């Protein structure tokens, strides 16, 4: 597909440029005292208009010789040859139109095409064509750059999606092995408790696998996942760990990307509550207001930060995920105030998949 001929706006600019060239040719004719303004314009404008379509064929010449595969000699031959042909065509158009115009209108004082002038016209035609080749080359190069940029952006998004997919389905080995250790301890202490913990663990991983395949899930499903996770962690940490979950009715069915809250809860325990000798409570609150779904996860933290303090990778991942899914329409922020660490999120409210 020709990029100029198939695009009305580009075509307009292209023709305007050629008509300007026509005016310029007329100006030269007048200046050389070869014609009057009226005749000069009548001669030059239709000829350049017609020639502009011939010159647009330069696009195909350029395309037939991609930049990377050009050998100097071959390219010179092709470009030179095609511009010579175009030069002859231009001369023929000029001559033909000159005579036709003369026949059609008596007012038209035909331009005297002398041999000398024919050579100049021919050279000009060749030159115009070479310029056209150059312009098309630039155009193609621009298009290639834009295409490459778009491909790079696309592959970045794909790579990030793939990375997130891995992150989402990744089983935290520390969590898994510690849970298995707890089950191992429970088998002799309390058989039924060992069994129920095994079932909780299985259920948690099953939910993780099911949810991470989806694009968006109701908040209630994510909360169920968090509850499974908390149930296991409560067996591990005992009385130290409490949870308080308040989800407003209008937020229950609101859609969110899967696996955004569970990692936050996991980190709230790992970097917050686990460090506190007396433990603490993870709280999750969510409500819908106007066109936004607000979710907050908070937990107490120790005043003396320990080595377990995270480096913020999880939170940065969350922001990146929001950026790639919502394109700047969702926010995630976090703050530490009065020994309480809180992550707040605001997402566009949606009940059906976009």
């Amino acid at each position: 597909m020709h990029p100029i001929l198939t695009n009305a706006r580009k075509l307009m600019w292209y023709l305007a440029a050629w008509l300007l060239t026509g005016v310029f040719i007329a100006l030269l004719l007048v200046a050389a005292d070869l014609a009057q303004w009226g005749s000069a314009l009548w001669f030059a404008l239709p000829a350049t208009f017609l020639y502009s379509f011939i010159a647009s064929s330069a696009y195909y010449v350029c395309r037939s010789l991609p930049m990377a595969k050009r050998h100097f000699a071959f390219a010179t031959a092709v470009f030179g040859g095609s511009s010579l042909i175009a030069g002859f065509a231009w001369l023929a158009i000029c001559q033909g139109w000159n005579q036709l115009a003369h026949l059609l209108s008596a007012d038209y004082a035909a331009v005297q095409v002398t041999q000398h002038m024919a050579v100049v016209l021919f050279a000009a035609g060749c030159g115009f064509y070479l310029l056209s080749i150059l312009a098309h080359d630039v155009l193609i190069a621009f298009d290639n750059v834009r295409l490459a940029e778009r491909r790079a952006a696309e592959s970045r998004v794909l790579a990030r999606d793939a990375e997130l997919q891995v992150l989402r389905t990744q089983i935290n080995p520390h969590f898994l092995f510690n849970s298995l250790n707890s089950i191992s301890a429970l088998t002799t202490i309390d058989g039924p408790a060992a069994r129920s913990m095994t079932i909780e663990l299985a259920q948690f991983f099953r939910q993780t696998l099911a949810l991470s395949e989806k694009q968006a899930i109701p908040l209630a499903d994510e909360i169920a996942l968090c509850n499974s996770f908390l149930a296991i962690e409560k067996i591990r940490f005992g009385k130290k760990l409490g949870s308080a979950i308040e989800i407003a009715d209008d937020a229950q069915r609101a859609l969110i990307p899967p696996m955004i809250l569970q990692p936050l809860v996991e980190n709230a325990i790992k970097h917050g509550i686990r460090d506190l000798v007396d433990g603490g409570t993870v709280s999750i609150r969510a409500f819908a207001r106007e066109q936004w779904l607000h979710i907050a996860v908070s937990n107490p933290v120790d005043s003396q930060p320990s080595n377990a303090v995270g480096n913020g990778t999880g939170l940065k991942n969350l922001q990146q995920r929001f950026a790639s899914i919502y394109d700047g329409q969702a926010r995630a922020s976090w703050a530490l105030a009065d020994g309480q660490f809180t992550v707040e999120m605001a997402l566009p409210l949606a009940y059906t998949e976009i």
Partner: protein
Amino acid sequence: MSETIKTLIVDDEDLARRLVREYLGKHADIEIIGECDNGLQAVKDIAALNPDLVLLDIQMPKLTGLEVLELTGRSSGVIFTTAYDQYALKAFDLHAVDYLLKPFSQTRFDEALAQARKALGQTLPALENLLEQATEKLERILIRDRNQVHVIPVEKMDYAEAQDDYVSIQSEGKCYLKTQRLSDLETQLDPKKFVRVHRSYIINIEKLQSIERATKDSHVALMRDGKQIPISRAGYDRIKAIM
């Protein structure tokens, strides 16, 4: 062998401690003298109870298992337990220090216990090397002060001053004493951020306000908190080299 082996169990999870207790129950010569659910408590109890054997979890709140050993200066009679910690385990394997991977069986536990029993009371070179390497890239300075443990992130240290057998460490307006040689501390700190400006001083470049000329050919470092620290001639060359 009528002597019992006094054993301390350190793990932040109740069930994990109970499992170890159960496994230890098979061994008549073991006497469990206490349980700790965090690193700080472990430091206190190791110092107070002086157990023969410590079952020590590596990943714990407050202090890691290795930090507990560093603070108590203990390098014998330890069995490590851990669920998963890539970095720690690599170091353990490198120095051939044994550890129990959770969940572990009674058989595996008994093997580790038998090994530990043989070496009771002897310092283990492998463990000493491991601890030395663990403190090579110091991120937090640990200071034991009678019954308290202070944890100072290295970037919050303003400067350290040698005082006889101690190092006094200045951080956020407070001064802490640590039994350590200044030269040992120097090797543990990042030389790009901490400079030995004088035989008796290491300063944190981040906390340096300016360098002033004191006399014709001597300088002092003016710190952000107003303290003036003498700079020796060699120290001046060192600080010029990195600034």
